[in-house]
């Protein structure tokens, strides 16, 4: 049943000498660039995000997906391209605008030229049916996933008042820190960043609102470590492909089971950090060595990681620190930032410092917005995040026993859909 407002709108529309309809919106109108428009993305291994991302008949935000790279778009004008139709077809000019838009902002009034009832714009190199519209109020500054709504209106050229299109378009917009590096790609369409991976990295891992890459990776480390997974105490074998990361099985509810190793954790951290634009790389460290007492993912305090398959007396997680008969890591894998060589490891946690007033102070500083305080607090709690190689080894590696001596080597990462 129509309300009074609807009837009023209908009367206004009937009085209008023209009627404009929005039919399509392109966010990623230039797949070769990510400075002035959205980046190339996919949904998952099987589903692409086709352009135009929005078409008439789409009602849910998850039907219309787009992602932006904050660093590459900083200081640049972001444009979208829209296709409109007008009736009667003899009309040649009209104005359009949209309110709302969340982080992409409202669409300022723009005059649209029509030819044969279809919008026409040759100012860009693409399809002339699409009108280039600059988003002058976009605010991309932090990692985000936001469902936005634009409420569209038009004004016929001979009139002064605006008519609602009776159309709101809904879109799910992602913002990442910069172009996602390997294993993702902007040139290989099969490796465009997945929105499934973005959902995990932004929503599940709680990186929404962050501008600090280090803290974003730290939160991914924390989230991966807190997943319902357990370290393989028998062989330390990978279940999710490690550097050939079986992302669909991981995101599909850990379909390969709950037992993982460090390769899997390093693969997960690298995959989900890089999808946010972080410069994380998969590093393989062979030989590694004996562990100090640490908490392997899903396990208790342990300095004898393969107690599941070791003969007595080494069939327990914790043995004398000086005992060289205990099991050790033959090799290890973790993520490392390429820019500052800091390590991030979600496979284990070191023993944390005793909770003191320092932690309370750091928590207060975090509440006040000091990102560095979160790093310190997490490190004090034993999280292996943002650590220089020597600090990392000091926390986890028992160098007093033979076996250590290797150093990390960057290895190519890939995803296995």
């Amino acid at each position: 049943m129509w309300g009074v407002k609807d009837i009023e709108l209908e009367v206004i529309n009937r009085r209008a000498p023209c009627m404009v309809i929005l039919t399509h919106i392109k966010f990623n109108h230039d797949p070769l660039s990510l400075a002035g428009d959205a980046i190339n993305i996919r949904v998952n291994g099987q589903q692409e995000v086709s352009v135009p991302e929005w078409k008439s008949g789409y009602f849910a935000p998850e039907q219309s997906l787009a992602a932006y790279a904050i660093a590459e778009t900083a200081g640049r004008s972001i444009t979208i391209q829209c296709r409109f139709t007008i009736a009667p077809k003899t009309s040649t000019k009209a104005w359009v605008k949209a309110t709302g838009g969340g982080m992409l902002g409202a669409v300022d009034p723009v005059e649209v030229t029509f030819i044969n009832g279809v919008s026409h714009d040759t100012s860009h190199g693409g399809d002339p049916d699409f009108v280039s519209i600059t988003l002058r109020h976009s605010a991309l500054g932090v990692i985000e996933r936001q469902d936005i709504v634009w409420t569209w209106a038009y004004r016929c050229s001979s009139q002064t008042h605006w008519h609602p299109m009776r159309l709101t378009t809904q879109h799910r917009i992602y913002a990442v820190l910069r172009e996602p590096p390997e294993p993702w790609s902007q040139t290989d369409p099969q490796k465009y960043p997945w929105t499934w991976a973005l959902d995990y990295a932004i929503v599940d891992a709680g990186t929404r609102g962050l501008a600090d890459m280090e803290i974003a990776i730290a939160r991914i480390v924390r989230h991966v470590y807190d997943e319902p997974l357990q370290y393989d105490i028998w062989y330390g074998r990978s279940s999710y492909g490690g550097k050939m990361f079986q992302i669909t099985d991981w995101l599909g509810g850990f379909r390969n089971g709950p037992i993982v190793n460090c390769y899997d954790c390093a693969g997960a951290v690298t995959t989900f950090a890089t999808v946010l634009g972080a410069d994380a790389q998969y590093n393989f460290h062979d030989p590694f060595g004996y562990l100090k007492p640490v908490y392997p993912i899903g396990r208790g305090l342990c300095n004898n990681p393969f107690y599941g398959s070791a003969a007595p007396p080494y069939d327990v997680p914790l043995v004398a620190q000086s005992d060289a008969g205990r099991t050790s890591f033959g090799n290890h894998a973790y993520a490392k930032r390429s820019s500052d060589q800091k390590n991030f490891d979600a496979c284990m946690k070191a023993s944390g410092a005793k909770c003191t007033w320092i932690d309370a102070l750091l928590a207060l500083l975090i509440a006040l917005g000091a990102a560095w305080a979160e790093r310190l607090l997490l490190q004090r709690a034993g999280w292996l995040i943002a650590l220089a190689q020597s600090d990392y080894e000091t926390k986890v590696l028992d160098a007093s026993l033979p076996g250590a001596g290797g150093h990390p080597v960057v290895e190519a990462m890939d995803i296995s859909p």
Partner: protein
Amino acid sequence: MAMTVLDRLGELKASLGVSGWELRTPPFIPGYAPPVTLPGLDRLTLERTRLHPARMPGATTWNSWVARTYVYREESTRASVQLTIVVDRESAAGAIDGLLLHLLQSQRKRKFVRSATTEIGDVAIEEPDANARHFLRRNVGVSVEDYGEAKELVPHLARAVDMGLRERANVASLAADPAKPKIVHFTANGSVVEVGGQVAIRLEVDDRHPPLAMSFHAESGSANMAKVPEEQLYFRAGPSPGKGRVSVLVINAVNLSAIAAFDIDITAVRRGVDSERLR
């Protein structure tokens, strides 16, 4: 000195004397999967299976082998054992690499030596420090590992699998064996597509051992599955003109695989082509 997995594979092959293994010539075994109930092991329940990645990181070609792990548990004792089967679709070379890579893909320091006996398999690899059995019979690699309380189960399962392999009829060539999935058609609905354009893919596979697992790899574009109006495979050309390529790997339940590929020319877009598609 830092080592990569491939460095370690080379070392292990040398230490085991792989070059002297006489497995590369026929006959071959036309695939293998453990039966639902293994002889004498009816208390074991198959908890899950796990297909291993079918490519090496960054590689554009498929491995010639398929590796699949079967995770078993004995509910009454909570004993757990993992059986990994590696099957090469061509000969034994890939099965050797696949099995050895599987053994190396662990963080525990492990010691492997060639077994002097032929109690199981054509070639057996001993692991003195673990309750595990690893062997190759022709083009099939097998690894059985104790994942808790499976002391007697491991040798029992290994013998049962080897018995099953010996009972399978051998073939002189795997190329056209009927147990192997046969890719009858893998073509694009056209040999040319414009930048950003899409073209339907026709895939038809004959197979006697369902279900099939499929993986696609595309270059200069992407292989996709349309959900509506009905499931339809298609290739979406990337943003640059050139040569596109799509390859498919299909794996059946007995871990035999087949591959196929097609090339497609990607041409520059005509002005206005988007609108033609939209109308």
